[in-house]
């Protein structure tokens, strides 16, 4: 594994994995469930990341240079381990396709209503396949340029929105007790669980043990942005929030500074396109890498374009319309995503630790 990233690059890769989509969707969702206390919901969600760190840490200590797919394949044999790896890759590709579809739906509903969805998605998919083929280092460098700009931009947009913000909308705090907040904090968990991809990339760090730290910092920043975004949506729109599908976008539309900066939501969409590009690239890269490691193939780069094509077809064909997608997101995804996100690493690493000493896994 000569393709390496630095802890800062990993930190920056982790941000869009959650934020690319969560910044737009989470404020509305938590606002619906927890009302004016919605901004507190993201704070509890990173618990799932703590679970991930707890699972991955023993592996990191034992085999800092190996991914859990490799450990699982070694411990459970090529058939069971490989199957688990393919399951993980399938989840990865599937989730990426869903993300891609969400991306396309938002884009075509806000900016390009007349452009065919396939055209919009095709361009993004080609970009994703290209960077993934060029490797993790290149992706890390891309993230280093794009993600700081994007995050600064999002924070500036949210700060500009303070003009119309009325923070009395956030009071009284915890009117209905902690119940709704706890229930609402389940929502961002789905996004934070996707950070398992970043844990997958830990072995690619120059110092793999810095991985959990980078991820923890990333979680802190993500929580800050999500909380701030939810609070701004609430402060700007108060009880109307549940009726807005993408409150953050409406917040951006409301901005008007000195009759000069007005209606800047297309700029937010631009940032969001770039964020989604990095997020999808991480998914795509991990998909290809997982397939390579599960099947013990030579290079992952040959998989880049086929996997991207599959992703595009899935994204276009999986749902007929947005309503179907929302229904699927609400009812099907929560049933199987956590099992793959947490379950597959747990089985692989657990088996590795159990079998490890007997077969002297670490020797290679």
């Amino acid at each position, binding site marked *: 594994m000569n393709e390496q990233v630095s802890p800062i690059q990993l930190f920056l890769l982790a941000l869009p994995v959650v934020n690319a989509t969560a910044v737009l969707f989470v404020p509305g969702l938590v606002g619906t469930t927890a009302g004016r206390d919605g901004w507190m919901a993201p704070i509890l969600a990173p618990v799932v990341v703590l679970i991930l760190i707890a699972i991955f840490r023993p592996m990191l200590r034992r085999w800092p240079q190996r991914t859990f797919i490799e450990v699982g394949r070694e411990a459970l044999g090529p058939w069971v381990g490989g199957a688990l790896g393919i399951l993980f890759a399938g989840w990865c590709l599937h989730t990426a396709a869903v993300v891609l579809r969400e991306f396309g739906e938002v884009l075509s509903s806000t900016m390009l209503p007349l452009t065919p969805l396939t055209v919009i998605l095709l*361009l993004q998919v080609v970009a994703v396949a290209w960077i993934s083929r060029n490797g993790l280092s290149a992706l890390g460098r891309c993230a280093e340029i794009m993600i700081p700009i994007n995050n600064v931009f999002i924070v500036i947009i949210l700060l500009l929105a303070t003009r119309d913000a009325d923070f009395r909308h956030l009071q009284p705090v915890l009117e209905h007790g902690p119940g709704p907040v706890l229930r609402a904090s389940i929502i961002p968990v789905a996004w934070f669980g996707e950070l398992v991809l970043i844990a997958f990339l830990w072995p690619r760090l120059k110092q793999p043990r810095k991985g959990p730290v980078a991820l923890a910092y990333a979680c802190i920043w993500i929580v800050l942005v999500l909380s701030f975004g939810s609070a701004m949506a609430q402060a700007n729109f108060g009880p109307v929030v549940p009726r807005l599908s993408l409150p953050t976008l409406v917040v951006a539309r409301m901005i008007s500074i000195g009759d000069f900066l007005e209606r800047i939501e297309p700029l937010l969409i631009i940032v969001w396109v770039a964020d989604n590009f990095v997020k999808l690239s991480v998914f795509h890269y991990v998909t290809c890498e997982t397939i390579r490691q599960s099947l013990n193939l030579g290079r992952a780069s040959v998989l880049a374009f086929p996997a991207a094509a599959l992703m595009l077809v899935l994204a276009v064909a999986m749902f007929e319309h947005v309503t179907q997608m929302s229904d699927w997101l609400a009812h099907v995804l929560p049933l199987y995503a956590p099992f793959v996100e947490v379950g597959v690493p747990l089985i692989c690493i657990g088996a590795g630790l159990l079998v490890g000493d007997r077969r002297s896994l670490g020797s290679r």
Partner: protein
Amino acid sequence: MTQSQKSWTGRAAEPWHDEPVSPVVKQNKARLQQVFGSPADLFFREVDAPGGPMVITAYLDGLIDGSRLDRDVLQTLVLESGGPAGTPELPAPGGTALSTLGEVAQQILDGALVLFQEGLTVARAFQIQAYPTRAVTEPEGETSVRGPKEGFIEDLRTNLSLLRRIVRTPNLRLEPMTLGTVTHTKVVLVYLQGLAREQTIAEARSRLQRIDVDSVLDTSTLEELIEDNPWSPFPQLLDTQRPDVVAGHILEGRFAILASGSPTALVAPIGFGVFLQTSEDYYERYWIASLVRLLRFFFASLSLLLPSLYVAVMTYHQELVPTALAMTIARAREGIPFPALIEILLMETSFEALREAGLRLPKAIGQAVSIVGALVIGEAAVRAGIVSAPVVIVVSTTGIASFTMPRFSGAITLRILRFPLLIAAGSLGLYGVTIGLIFLMIHVASLSSFGMPYLSPWSAWSPQGLLDVFLRAPRWQQRRRPQTARRDATARVEYGLGPTGRNGSDM
């Protein structure tokens, strides 16, 4: 003499190449005349003083110093040939022994005076070259108000001496090699031993040695042959005509390539940020240098993006424009027969044509072209209602922005990339621009210059590395050399060297 196609490329040695120098001097002369084809400028001078062996000198007129030929060579030969039979010692540098005709021919072509002596099977070469060279002047493309005004010229020896006079250490390595099977161009790899990374230098050396072409007319030939990604629109080596720029770069662990006949040195490994720097930045005070750099970054991005942003916003996202401005633009665009994309493409193309037309014309006519062009395009086209005034403003701002880029080779890249972005903006609006930028970013992030990431100062994310990218921090702040230097040679300035009231004199 029939010369096969193959020998013309000079790759296979010609039959006379390994022929030994004959002890009979007249025969050597005859052979040389045959090999060179009795040209107008190949001169022989026979000295056959009584009592001594016969001596013949051969040289190319125009490559050697006539006065030294008279004073040092002929006088010595005539005066000393009466003495004991031996090899005459000439008061001239050189004296290299040559044993084959090939070596002799090469030395003559290099401008040496070759001396044959009756009875000896070795000839000797004396270096008394003198040929017309241009004066050392300030390069036109890289002028500076403050700082040295020397520039490279076409003569390699002069260029190397300019460098030697700036960096006076035996660690300054000048590795010679000869490239071009026909032109036999001298190429020198310059670096600082102990500061440059060994693997980078080894890579540069092997890439240069791999070159197998007939001619090297300029360092640009080498550039195209040693780039990491030959298809990229981005230059991966910096071209400069200033010795102080080369010195500054090799002091940061980079290497330079100079070639005889070329006033342009190549520098690598570099990142794209280098194309936004000038030597002036380092001679002016850091406040103005930093602010000017930020200005350049801003205008460089404008030169890439402004036309496509205009097209995207005017075609797809009119709501982004402040209301009053949108009204003004709408009024200006009223009655214009073309969509914004076509308007911009028309204007951009004519602007590029205008620039190209004015470039190579004599100065007097060039001005006429630009006046006519400005009048026709700026004034008449708007009056006639063919293009709108905002488009003229956008295109001319873009033109000015691309001129703020101090390095031509970098500015060209952005100029080219502007057009695909324009098409993307016209077809998909801001999404097209963003996707275009993402594609650009993927390419740049995957690019490297001699193993260094092309984005290295940014992607390094070390505060020290960034001190010399967007800003030009004061010298005493730039404590570390960039990544290009060897890892054990990063310390440049000691901590706390900044002038303060405490560590100066008592004043």
